[in-house]
């Protein structure tokens, strides 16, 4: 209950209107950063499409369901391509391919060895949580056209996160060890992807701190839903910090 001339309290009195201003979507610096962020999003959706199709080859009984998820990712890719066109931005696809290559390679390796748990962790938990966090932050600062598209996409992504989470939950006893091992290898990659994209994201008024927090919320929720306890989650999340 603050009153009087408290310096702590004075900080609490700040109006949020100035802090919340949207970026200038037409500026060159915005478009330059958008060319990379937009490419990452497009590439991420394409990667997701390919990964779900690939996972379907490991569990043929689920292939139809996975095809459905893959089709949704394709639809998202088209939506985000339209976002770039709308701002007259050409996405920097070579940059995005390089950006995703460590995760892409790890997924391909796990796929070749039939390590389904690792495949699910990379695609359905880490990439989906990364996408959800980025989209949730982006929605708050996007241009009206992209905002509408992203709002539709994010609802679908929660379904995808849920799909992988349900599979891992059902198989937790047999896959826990592999899950923890794969997490230790791949979570730091997510962290480094966030670091790489931080300055471009900042140009779009997306804070790195907020992106990281959103990611950790989606990631933690997902592991919690799978049946891991607080201490196990804390140990897994440690890989993002050290």
């Amino acid at each position: 209950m603050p009153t009087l001339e408290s310096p702590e309290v004075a900080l609490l009195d700040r109006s949020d209107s100035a802090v919340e201003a949207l970026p200038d979507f037409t500026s060159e610096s915005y478009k330059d950063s958008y060319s990379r962020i937009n490419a990452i999003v497009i590439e991420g959706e394409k990667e997701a499409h390919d990964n779900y199709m690939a996972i379907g080859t490991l569990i043929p009984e689920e292939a139809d369901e996975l095809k459905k998820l893959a089709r949704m990712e394709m639809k998202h890719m088209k939506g985000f391509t339209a976002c770039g066109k709308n701002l007259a931005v050409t996405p920097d696809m070579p940059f995005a391919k390089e950006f995703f290559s460590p995760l892409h390679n790890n997924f391909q390796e796990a796929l070749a060895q039939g390590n389904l748990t690792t495949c699910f962790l990379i695609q359905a938990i880490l990439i989906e949580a990364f996408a959800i966090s980025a989209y949730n932050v982006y929605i708050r600062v996007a241009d009206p056209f992209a905002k509408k598209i992203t709002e539709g996409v994010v609802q679908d992504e929660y379904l995808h996160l849920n799909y992988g989470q349900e599979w891992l939950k059902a198989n937790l006893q047999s896959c826990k060890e592999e899950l923890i091992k794969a997490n230790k290898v791949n979570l730091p990659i997510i962290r480094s992807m966030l670091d790489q994209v931080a300055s471009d994201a900042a140009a779009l008024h997306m804070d790195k701190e907020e992106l990281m927090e959103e990611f950790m919320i989606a990631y933690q929720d997902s592991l919690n839903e799978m049946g891991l306890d607080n201490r196990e989650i804390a140990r897994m999340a440690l890989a993002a910090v050290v």
Partner: protein
Amino acid sequence: MFGLIGHSTSFKDARIKAMELGFDHIAEGDLDVWCSAPPQLVEHVQIVSPSGKSIEGAYIDSCFVPEMLGRFKTARRKVLNAMELAQKKGINITALGGFTSIIFENFNLLQHKQIRNTTLEWERFTTGNTHTAWVICRQLEINAPSIGIDPKQAKVAVVGATGDIGSAVCRWLSKRTGVAELFLVARQKQPLLDLQKELGGGQILGLDEALASADVVVWVASMPRTLEIDSSKLRNPCLMIDGGYPKNLDGKVSGKGVHVLKGGIVEFFNDIGWSMMELAAMEKPQRQMFACFAEAMLLEFENCHTNFSWGRNNITLEKMDFIGKASVRNGFSTLNLNKVFQVAAA
């Protein structure tokens, strides 16, 4: 189920607690890591009332620390994310503790109802201010006589009089306790004039003047760090009830006849098997807690799942009566000077 949203009193304490709880990834991180840390549901607790009614609750640490007060967007996210977590966990009524309710009100978080895919339902949350205000008033009524001050003869200064808790305290002291004189101290003039009109009395005074004349001082404002109080100018005896947050009045005043009491603190009649009140430096952490937290428990005990304390200046005497009776009925008493806990029967 009831919920409590709290936070550590400092970054240093927060790291120690996180380490104890096994949240090493956060404990080892710097302030930036904490700014990105999600809220944590750290403890489940079961509480049984004197009549044998059992309720369950959860403590959520928002991962906010006071060092983040200067980071406007961070502080806002911490509060909203903790509220979202409470709602996602299906908690019926959750109290916003410590700086959480202050941030909620001052940042006008009512306009942020949509958090990701969750639409916050305000009826699931309470500031707990009604119970806090009632407890502070009862603390005055019980403790002033014990140091030789008759409440009905007393001059009482309320510092932070126009706030949510302050205005409720003024209402009670003027209509129920019937104090001899009420001094209203606050920063802004117009709300003071409005309050004076509503009360039909009370004297608007500056802080120094009020302190020099008051037998009892009720602080319900956050204390500016730089504020210094000249204890020699206080009356003897003088009862000071520190109802603000954080509670730091005892470090600022001392002297003959000056009695400082932590305001808005209650004690449960039995031990509660939790560890979280150690964070708030309670003398008896197994039983003592902030009255705002206890309000969530009371609302759960009474099956009153509504945002009982919400918005500013909505605390009526009737609401204070309701929560006061529930408080006594369900085994809570007020923190008192002589450390002998008396049932705070109204």
